[in-house]
């Protein structure tokens, strides 16, 4: 503890269970085990979230999605926890699952070309649950404040059982609601959003039909 470490992208890929393109942390510039972390995420126009946008949209339509910003923050927090328990020689056969955020305030937007800086502090650990807090910055602008994010630590075997590609064995309510932010289901979420019409596109249709 006390000494700060840095992690390059290859190390982040080895730490997080996510695969491309859902790894939303590029670099860690400061890691204090059991205490805090600063994660970096560069936003580019070639990311999947901008893939199917039609031509001719205004600049505000390229704001980085809040859901991905929170996911990126959560992954930064996950690195802090995973590296911390590794250093304490604890059981690594467990994964973190995002469960909730309390008092999230969005105070600005980020766009392709911006670099997100997530400053995350470990707040408390209660049994198998981790509490973190922090802020997201773009240069000197604070764009998000997360007063409390909670993740549940569960055995890897239990999570994998529910996250099979077909979704077999997954309780219906889990499958249908809020799966986009759960770490291991991000691929399922991507597959689903590619198959269904883009919400952005449908919103545009609504708008044009009403005018």
């Amino acid at each position: 503890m006390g000494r700060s470490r840095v992690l390059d992208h290859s190390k982040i890929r080895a730490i997080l269970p996510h695969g491309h393109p859902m790894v939303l942390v590029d670099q860690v510039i400061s890691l204090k085990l059991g205490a805090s972390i600063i994660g970096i995420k560069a936003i580019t126009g070639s990311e999947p979230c901008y893939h199917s946008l039609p031509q001719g949209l205004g600049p505000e339509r390229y704001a980085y999605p809040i859901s991905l910003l929170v996911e990126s923050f959560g992954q930064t927090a996950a690195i802090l926890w995973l590296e911390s328990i590794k250093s304490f020689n604890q059981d690594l056969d467990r994964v973190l699952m995002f469960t909730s955020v309390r008092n999230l305030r969005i105070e600005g937007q980020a766009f392709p070309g911006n670099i997100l800086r997530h400053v995350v502090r470990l707040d408390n650990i209660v049994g198998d649950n981790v509490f973190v807090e922090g802020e997201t910055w773009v240069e000197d602008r604070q764009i998000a404040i997360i007063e409390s994010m909670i993740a549940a630590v569960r055995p890897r075997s239990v999570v994998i059982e529910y996250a099979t590609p077909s979704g077999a064995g997954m309780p219906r309510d889990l499958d249908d609601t809020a799966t986009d932010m759960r770490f291991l289901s991000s691929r399922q979420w991507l597959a689903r959003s590619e198959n269904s019409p883009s919400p952005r596109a449908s919103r545009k249709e609504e708008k044009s039909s009403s005018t």
Partner: protein
Amino acid sequence: MSQGLEELRKIVAEVLELEPEEIADTGDFVEEYGADSMRAIEILSRIEKKYRVEIPQKELPQMQTLLSVYNVMTRYAGWQE
């Protein structure tokens, strides 16, 4: 007892997203206020932070009402019964 109890009522109300006066001393968090297990863990975490005490997770099943949370505090934080 009253000051501690009122502070706890405020914490519980914040987590359950209710007004403090809506939380009765013996109202069941799950049955009456729609709480789930994560809410109970949040309540425990906030209490630990505010009062700098450590409450074992095995106490969670007992922390179902404001009064039972108070009773846990009498055992782990030396509060008066």
